């Protein structure tokens, strides 16, 4: 069992990171929520990229024609994760823009407090 856990270290770490990211979503502060979502995304990418790794093989930069696929790792997951990282940057930037606008209006980063103020219609500006 311990041997299996050591063998599957990347996937187990990714699952734990996903759970930690999921838990930081609980925190009322907006910046913490955004970091939580970032951690969840990077943990999924770690899980996906670990699917492509094969022992004793190198990065998929072929040297000549007719390359032997048994020397290189699987390029598909790193391609998917490359596009995934860009998605998480754009969602983070969108979140931060929303946070600035909310802080301008309600002078607080606590989402629960903001929602209460918003429902009562108390805008600072």
């Amino acid at each position, binding site marked *: 069992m311990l041997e299996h856990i*050591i063998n599957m*270290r*990347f996937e187990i*770490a990714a699952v*734990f*990171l996903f759970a*930690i*990211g999921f*838990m*930081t979503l*609980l*925190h009322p*502060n907006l*910046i*913490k929520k*955004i*970091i*939580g979502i*970032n*951690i969840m995304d*990077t943990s999924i*990418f*770690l899980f996906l*990229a*670990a699917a*492509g*790794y094969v022992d004793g*093989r*190198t*990065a998929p930069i072929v040297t000549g024609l007719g390359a032997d696929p048994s020397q290189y*790792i699987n390029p598909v*997951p*790193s391609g998917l*994760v*490359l596009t995934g*990282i*860009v998605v998480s*940057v754009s969602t*983070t*930037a969108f979140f*931060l823009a929303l*946070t*600035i606008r909310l*802080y301008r209006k309600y*002078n*607080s*980063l*606590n989402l629960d407090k903001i929602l209460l103020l918003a429902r009562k219609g108390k805008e600072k500006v």
Partner: protein
Amino acid sequence: MILLQCLLLLGLIVCAASLPFIKRLLTTAIVFMAYSSIMAILWVMLESPDLAITEAAVGAGVTTVLFITTLSRIRELKGVDDDDRT
């Protein structure tokens, strides 16, 4: 090699787990930068260099700079940033 990977993964989990308990928001941004840097090293160990460059430039570089500039816009950096108060 496996031991180093396990240590780095543990470092990742420690970085991620410490975030909800840090009071100052600037410290959370810097811990997140550490988290992304460790992730970039892990990509290199997983034999995918494209991801390492992207994660280093985007995760450690751009995202953290955006966090810190947001905090400066919210004037958090003047030591008034206990997240419970705001």
